[in-house]
C-alpha cells in the first residue's frame, strides 16, 4: 500500500513537472520562433516585409529538445555516477545543456537571418543580445523539469531505461507535444493577428506577418508574452496529461488482470478523450456555424 501511495505521489509530481516543461517549451519555441510558423518569418523578407522577429528554426522542436534534454540527462547521470547529489547534478547538467542551446540559438539566428541579406533583412545585434538570453532562461525551465521528471521515473518508479535514454524519449515527446499544440496559436493567432478571427489564414496572405506593436516594431518577446496566455498552458496541459496518465495507469493497474489492467484502463482513457473530442467538434460546428462570404457578413 505504501509503495502504491509513493507511486501515485511521484506520478503526480512527474505530471506537474511535465506540465511546467510543456508550457516553458512552447513559450521558448515561440520567443525563438522555432516551430512550423517560422516558415512565415523566413518568408516575410522575401515578400518585402522586413521584421524584428527572432529566427532559430534550423531544426524542429522535437529533435532540438531531444538533444538538449539528453545532454542534461546524460551529464546529470554522469555526475550522479561520481556520487554527486541528484538535485545538484540535475541543476548543473541542465545549465550545461542550456549553454549548448544558447550557442545553437545564437548561431541559428545569425545563419538564418544573414541568409536573407539579399532581401535587405538586417541582423539586429540588440535582438541577438536581448532574445537569446530569454530563450535560454525558458529552455532551462523546460530542460530542468524534464530531466527531473525522467530521474523520478527511473529512480522512484523503477523504469528500466537509464536516465540518458529516458532523456531522448521524453525530450522528443516534449517537443512533439509542444509543437503540435502550441504552433497554431503562435502561427495563426499571433503572426496573423491582422487577419479575421475565427478563420484560417488565406494562402494568399502568406508572408504578411504582423510586424508592428503598440509602439514601434514587434519583437519576439511580445510573441512569448502573447502565446504564454493560451498556447503555452495548452502545451503544458497536453504534455502533463500524457506523462501523468501514462504513469498513473501503469503504477495503479499494471498488476491487475494478469498485466492487462493498465492496457484496459488505457483503452478506456483513449475512448473518453475520443468522446470529448467529438463533443467539442460538434459544439463548434453548431455554435460557430458554416463560413459566410465577407460581403454577406458585412451586409
Amino acid at each position: 500500500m505504501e509503495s502504491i501511495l509513493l507511486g501515485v505521489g511521484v506520478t503526480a509530481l512527474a505530471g506537474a513537472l511535465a506540465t511546467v516543461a510543456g508550457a516553458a517549451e512552447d513559450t521558448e519555441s515561440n520567443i525563438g520562433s522555432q516551430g512550423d510558423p517560422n516558415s512565415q518569418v523566413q518568408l516575410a523578407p522575401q515578400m518585402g516585409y522586413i521584421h524584428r522577429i527572432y529566427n532559430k528554426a534550423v531544426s524542429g522542436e522535437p529533435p532540438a529538445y531531444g538533444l538538449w534534454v539528453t545532454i542534461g540527462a546524460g551529464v546529470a547521470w554522469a555526475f550522479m555516477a561520481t556520487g554527486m547529489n541528484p538535485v545538484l547534478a540535475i541543476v548543473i547538467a541542465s545549465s550545461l545543456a542550456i549553454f549548448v542551446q544558447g550557442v545553437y540559438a545564437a548561431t541559428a539566428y545569425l545563419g538564418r537571418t544573414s541568409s536573407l541579406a539579399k532581401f535587405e533583412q538586417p541582423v539586429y545585434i540588440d535582438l541577438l543580445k536581448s532574445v537569446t538570453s530569454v530563450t535560454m532562461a525558458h529552455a532551462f525551465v523546460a530542460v530542468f523539469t524534464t530531466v527531473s521528471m525522467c530521474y523520478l521515473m527511473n529512480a522512484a518508479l523503477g523504469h528500466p531505461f537509464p536516465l540518458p535514454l529516458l532523456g531522448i524519449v521524453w525530450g522528443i515527446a516534449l517537443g512533439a507535444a509542444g509543437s503540435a499544440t502550441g504552433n497554431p496559436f503562435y502561427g495563426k493567432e499571433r503572426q496573423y493577428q491582422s487577419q479575421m478571427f475565427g478563420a484560417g489564414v488565406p494562402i494568399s496572405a502568406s508572408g504578411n506577418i504582423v510586424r508592428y506593436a503598440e509602439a514601434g516594431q514587434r519583437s519576439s518577446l511580445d510573441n512569448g508574452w502573447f502565446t504564454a496566455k493560451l498556447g503555452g498552458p495548452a502545451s503544458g496541459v497536453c504534455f502533463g496529461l500524457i506523462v501523468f496518465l501514462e504513469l498513473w495507469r501503469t503504477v495503479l493497474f499494471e498488476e491487475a488482470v494478469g498485466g492487462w489492467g493498465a492496457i484496459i484502463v488505457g483503452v478506456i482513457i483513449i475512448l473518453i478523450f475520443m468522446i470529448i473530442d467529438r463533443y467539442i467538434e460538434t459544439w463548434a460546428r453548431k455554435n460557430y456555424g458554416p463560413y459566410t462570404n465577407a460581403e454577406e457578413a458585412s451586409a
Partner: protein
Amino acid sequence: MSALGAAKGGGEGINPTASIIGIVIIIAALAITAVMAAPALVAVIGVIIGGALVGFGVHFVPVGGAPAAMGQSPGIATGVAMLAAGAGLAGLFGGAWAAANPAFGIAVVIAAGAIGGGLMMAITCLMVNIVYIFGMGIPAASGKVAKDPITGDSQAEYKSQGTEGHGLPFISYVGGVIGGLLGGAGGTLIYYELLQVYSAMLPAMFNASAEEVLPIAVSLAGIFAVGMFLVNAVLAAYNITGTIEGPHDPKFKRFPRAIIGCAVASAVCGLFAVLIVVV
C-alpha cells in the same frame, strides 16, 4: 531538362524493379543472420515486422506541417516524422516498462507499447482541436473529402475561404490514434526482440551473470529501437511528401511502398543490431 520540367516526384504506384531488389536485400539479410547468428533469426523477423508496422502507422497520423500552423490545411502543425517519433517513443516507454516485468508475455508488452502511443496521440489530437476551437474560433474541416467517412459530417461549408481546411475532423482524430497504436506496437516489438537477443548473448560475451548485463541489454535494445523508429518514421515521411490528413487522404494509398521500404531498412538495421553481439 530543367528541374521545373522534370516529372512530378513520388507518384502512387509500386516500382517492381525496386521492390524485387528490396526483397532480395531482405532475403540476403535473413540468410546472413541464419548463417552467422541462427538463434537471432526470429528476432530479425520481428524487427522487420516492427519496422513495417511503424511505416504503416505513420501514414495514419494527420500531419499538416507549416500550413496547419496558419490554419491553411488540416492536421497537426508539426512534421510527420517528428510527431510519429514522439508518439512511438511514448509507446516504447510503456512497452519497455512492461517488458521489465518477467511475468508478462509478449502480447502484454506489445499491447502496452501500442496503448502508450495511442494515448499520447489521443491527448495531443484533443489539445490541437481545443486550441483551434476555443483559442482561435475555428471549427475542424477537411479539404480532401466532402463528408467525414466516420461521422458523415459535411466539410466544405466549414472550410474558410482560401484554405484547404483546418483542425482535426473526427476521421483525422481516429487516424492519429490508430497511427499512435501501430507506431507504439512496432517500436516495442523491435525493442522486445532485440532485448531477448541481447539478454541471451551478452552474458557469454562479457563472461558475466544475466543480472549484471541486463542494464547493458536494456540500454542497447532501447537505443537501437529509438534509432530504428526514426529510420522508419523518416522513410514513411518521405513517402508521404509533406502533409497528410489521415486514412481518408488520397496519399494514404501510397502505404504499400513505405511498408516495403521500411521492411528493407529494418532488415539491414536489424542485421547489424544482431551482429554486434555475434561478431
